[in-house]
């Protein structure tokens, strides 16, 4: 168990394309557990990706089940090792913020529904269909694995500058 420091931009880790992780390696399950602990410890976050704690491997975790927006459609805690989005449909715009880019939010358009394939922490090959907030959260975290921040996807620059609610 370890709650890690969440790195903030301009930390170079956040702009790197991550390498595939070994789903069977002990380090990978330790990393997954660190991500889970760090996400829950932050209190207000619904997802975190490995580069946000300084590890350049393709691992991310998401849990929107406790959030008002995600309560209806969710898969609880989702641990994703080497995730790939294999299908996307629809469009959904949400105003996103990120622990790694404090004090900035912006409207980002993403797929409304996705099918994502990954290995979980028990080495199961999983395919899940997600929609709504859970789908948005997963797309946001998977962007981190490719060195992309939500800043790279903001759809209108208008009114984005204010402190978000914690």
């Amino acid at each position, binding site marked *: 168990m370890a709650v890690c420091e969440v790195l903030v931009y301009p930390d170079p880790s956040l702009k790197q394309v991550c390498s595939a992780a070994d789903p069977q390696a002990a380090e990978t399950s330790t990393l997954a557990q660190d991500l889970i602990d760090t996400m829950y410890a932050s209190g207000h*976050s619904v997802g975190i990706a490995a580069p946000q704690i300084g590890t350049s491997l393709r691992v991310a975790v998401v849990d929107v089940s406790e*959030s008002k927006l995600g309560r209806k459609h969710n898969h609880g805690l989702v641990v994703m090792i080497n995730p790939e989005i294999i299908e996307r449909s629809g469009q959904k715009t949400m105003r*996103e913020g990120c622990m790694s880019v404090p004090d900035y939010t912006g409207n980002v358009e993403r797929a409304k529904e996705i099918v994502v394939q990954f290995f979980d922490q028990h080495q199961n090959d999983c395919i899940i269909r997600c929609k709504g907030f859970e789908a948005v*959260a997963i797309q946001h975290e998977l962007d981190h694995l490719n060195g992309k921040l939500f800043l790279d996807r903001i759809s209108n620059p208008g009114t984005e*500058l*204010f*402190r978000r609610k914690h």
Partner: protein
Amino acid sequence: MKHFAVTIIGRDRPGIVSDTARVLYELGCNVADSSSTILGGQFAMILIVSHPDFESSEPLQQAYAELESSGMSVFVRTLKPGGEMRPELPGELCMISVYGSDKPGIVYQVTRLLSQNNINIIDLATKLIGSEERPVYVMMCEAVLPATLSVEDIRDMLENLREELQVDISVRNVTPVEL
């Protein structure tokens, strides 16, 4: 360090932003938050700037004399200490859209209601669209709700105005999600 708010407005043309930025760069000013947009045929810029040595707005005003002589209007406001800091804005964030055939008082009636309920507007844009014969007014207002009010409350509150002004009004939650 003293901070200043610089407001610049004039007939739109290519080069206003770079002319403005060049003056600030040559003076050694830092630009913090800024917002610029085209309104009608005018381009308007508002910038919060700072300079390590300036005690008054005089050097800024002098440096902008040339731009002013080209027809731009420049106003420099000296901020009180802390005036450059963004305040904490807790509370749900909502977007209020108001649109309908143009008539006097749309902005006033809507914003008066918000003000009376202690709802803080953080961004407001209005635009006159449609044709000359049938002008349509569009107002987009982003506001922070006090803890005691919900988006549904605002919706109910605006219902009377919707009938009175004969406009369409919609309210939705745009509170950011942290991921």
